[in-house]
C-alpha cells in the first residue's frame, strides 16, 4: 500500500501508527460533526457527549484495522451511530429492538393533512415556537427513521453513504427516509394549518 496515502486530507499511515498530532487533527476536524449527530439522534447533550468520547476512543483503537475503503468521516459516523444505538438499547430496550424491521415493512400512509401552509410568512415558519415543534416532531420519529432522516437530510449524506453507516440496504434507506419525511410533513402540517387559520382570523 502507498505509504503516503492520504485520506480526507489525513495521512492514514500516521493515523495507523498512532501519531498523536495526526489523531488530534482528526478529533478537531470531526468532533463537532459527531457531537451534533449525537445530539440529533439522542436528543440529550449528556448522552451525546458520552457517545462523542466513546466514538473517538474506539476510533483510536481501531484505526490500525481501518481498511480505507470508505471515507474516514463515514467510518467515524458508523462508529458513532453504533455507540448511540447501544446507549439507546441500554436505556430503552423495548423501543429500539422491534421498530427497525417494522419501519421497512409498513407502506406509506395516505396523507391526512392537505393544507398548503407554504405561504406562511418566514417569521411564522421559523418562530421560537415553530423551532420547538420541529424538534419535537423529529424526536417523535422512531429511532431507525430518525437515524436515516438525520444522516440524509441534516448531515447531507448520500443514500449509499447512509446505507454504509447503518449497515442496511440502499432500498431500506429510501423506504425509511420516505416514511420519516411523510410523518414529519403530517406533524408540521397539523401545526402550521392552525397558524394559518389563526392568521386568517386576524
Amino acid at each position, binding site marked *: 500500500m502507498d505509504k503516503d496515502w492520504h485520506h480526507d486530507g489525513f495521512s492514514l499511515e500516521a493515523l495507523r501508527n498512532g501519531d*498523536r*498530532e495526526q*489523531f*488530534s487533527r482528526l*478529533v*478537531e476536524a470531526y*468532533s*463537532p*460533526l459527531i*457531537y*451534533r449527530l449525537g445530539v440529533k439522534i439522542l436528543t440529550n*447533550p449528556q448522552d451525546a*457527549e458520552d457517545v*462523542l*468520547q466513546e466514538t*473517538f*476512543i474506539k476510533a*483510536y483503537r481501531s484505526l490500525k484495522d481501518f481498511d480505507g475503503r470508505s471515507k474516514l468521516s463515514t467510518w467515524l459516523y458508523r462508529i458513532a451511530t453504533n455507540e448511540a444505538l447501544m446507549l439507546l438499547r441500554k436505556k430503552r430496550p423495548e423501543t429500539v429492538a422491534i421498530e427497525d424491521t417494522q419501519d421497512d415493512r409498513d*407502506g*406509506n400512509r*395516505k*396523507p391526512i393533512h*392537505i*393544507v*398548503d*401552509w*407554504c405561504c406562511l410568512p418566514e417569521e411564522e*415558519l*421559523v418562530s421560537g415556537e415553530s*423551532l420547538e415543534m*420541529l424538534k419535537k416532531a*423529529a424526536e417523535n420519529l422512531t429511532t431507525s427513521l430518525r437515524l436515516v432522516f438525520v444522516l440524509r*437530510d*441534516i448531515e447531507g449524506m448520500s443514500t449509499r453513504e447512509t446505507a454504509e453507516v447503518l449497515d442496511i440496504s440502499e432500498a431500506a434507506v*429510501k423506504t425509511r*427516509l*420516505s416514511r420519516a*419525511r*411523510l410523518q*414529519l*410533513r403530517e406533524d*408540521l*402540517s397539523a401545526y402550521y394549518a392552525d397558524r394559518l387559520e389563526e392568521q386568517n382570523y386576524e
Partner: protein
Amino acid sequence: MNEHDDCQALLDSLSDFVDGDLHEKLCAEIERHLGTCENCRIVVDTLRKTINLYQITSTPPTIPKDVRKRLYRRLYLEDYLGD
C-alpha cells in the same frame, strides 16, 4: 389508471421525486399528474418545505468549549487543546 391510483403511486415515489432521483419517464408522469391534482401538488410542496425547514434551521456543527475540553482530556490530547 384512475386518479386514485395515480395519487397512491405518487405517494410511494414522492421522496425520490423531491430528490430528483426518478427516471425521466416517471418524473414526467408525476409532473403531469401534479398539474391536474391539487391535493398531490400540496403534498409535494409541503413535503419539500418540510425538508427545507429542517435544513435551514439546522445549526452548524459546533462543540461547546467544556465538552471539547473533556473530550481532549479523555483522549490524553491536552497538549493539542490550544487556547
